[in-house]
């Protein structure tokens, strides 16, 4: 099902922003907020996992009901999960389209990756210290 992904700050994201290896940060940054009626259409419940596909990439997140969103929109707080789906194209403005990304959301049983795993997928080497 097609959605428009909106991003923004949240208090839990800001609180854990200097602890990006923490479970608190992973959970907040990988939560896909969705209108309850859209969740019903996709047969999802709170905590169900979804694969969110952007133009080039996909990432697994967990869903949370958000009656404060319009139908057809998802909200993911700014961070590595949302940015995994944003393209680097700026059309010569210097700024990617962080807040208006068309995505496709589908249910999945796959697990939500950690931040370190996402960075490994980028070619990095996780530091576990």
């Amino acid at each position, binding site marked *: 099902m097609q959605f428009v992904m909106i991003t923004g*700050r949240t208090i839990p994201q800001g609180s854990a922003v200097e602890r990006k290896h923490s479970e608190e940060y992973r959970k907040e940054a990988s939560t896909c907020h969705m209108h309850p009626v859209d969740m019903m259409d996709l047969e999802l419940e709170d905590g169900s996992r979804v694969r969110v596909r952007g133009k080039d990439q996909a990432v697994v997140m967990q869903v949370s009901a958000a009656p404060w969103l319009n139908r057809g929109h998802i909200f993911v707080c700014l961070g590595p999960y949302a940015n995994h789906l944003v393209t680097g194209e*700026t059309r010569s403005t210097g700024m990617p389209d962080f807040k208006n990304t068309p995505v496709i959301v589908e249910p999945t049983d796959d697990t939500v990756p950690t931040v370190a795993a996402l960075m490994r997928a980028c070619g990095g080497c996780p530091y576990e*210290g």
Partner: protein
Amino acid sequence: MRVEDVVCPFCGCLCDDLVVTVEGEQVVSVENGCTLANEKFMGGKRLGHPIRRDGDSWKETTYQEAIEATAGILMDADRPLLYGWSGTHGEAQSIGVHLAELLGGVVDNTSTVCHGPSILAIQEVGHPGCTLGQVKNRADLILYWGANPIEAHPRHMSRYTTYADGFFVTNAFRDRKVIVVDVRRTESANIADEFVLLEPGGDYAVLSALRAIVRGRGDVVPPQVAGVSREQLFRVADLCKNARFGAMFFGLGLTMTPGKSKNIRNAIELTSELNRHTKFTISPMRGHWNVYGSNEVFTWLTGYPFAVDFARGIAFYNPGETSSIDILHRGEADACLVVASDPGAHFPRACCDHLARIPTVLVDPHVNATTHLSRLQIPVAVTGIDAEGTAYRMDGVPIRTRMLYQSRFPSDAEVLSRIYDVVQREKRK
């Protein structure tokens, strides 16, 4: 030890009324701070020593080795990118600009992915802004557009707007009207007197409609503009025109959506129109605590506020070409020094892929997403906690942050000075 009037180094509000209790090298309590401030002072776990990549693992290294290696990486590069800067003090930012000039590299700060478009618009049509003190004491109408201060700047409303009594606004909660414009019903929208819900990407059209109404051409406005009714647009325009002093604050909801800098230009021009009727100002809600400072420091050193390219031997500025996202997306940078920032978490995937391909060095107190993409990380003191330095509040007011205890970590300025000295020494050979 109890320290009063401490400045919070988290967001652009730079709240300067915190009371912090310190025991040894540990902050044990924070008074007056928001949740974000409490976490900033008490929550972070520092990286204890410099680390370097060794194949598929990490090893501890010394500061001297890490600094020499960083200088070597930067000198070996043809197109080094020096990115970040918004989470450190002005003195360190200044050294960063000089280092970029010495290397012939690109120096860019995080406004490239936040209010860069706002700066482009301000360069086109100016900035009818004011200090937050003016807003607190005079404004009877506050308009938050594409901004959610309750979550991003939690004390903005209590220190300067909705809940802050001022000299001419003695009962702020009753006397100040608050309008929120957003694409979702945020926490801030819930306490607004008027909430305007628009469709994503509809900001430019709604701003244009408001300009037409304020200009006296409401007849051209259709029944609906980007999901907003004509009636509500007229109501909002009337609220703005009838205010004694209006203050618009805009966030990344305007800079990151289609239209980008043109959205901001339109908002500034709406502000200009409103000044035909009353006093109205507009200001960006700056995110990182010293991102405004990075623009100030870059500008007084190079003439340009971000995305400054020294490859020609002189400062050159062309956002869209010399900005970090574009340089990384094109695969152009062949080394990157990241200071006080986390592009691993906040850059698009393709840019992170490139940061992992090239030698990236991170100067930051904490392990963050960029750590995993780097070859080296040098931990430093946190400015405002165990290092001091100058920062600029979101309204351009410089404030000196304080050092609460003597740190065992060097400051950003110390580490960067040592890197600069090594590069200068080698270049003179």
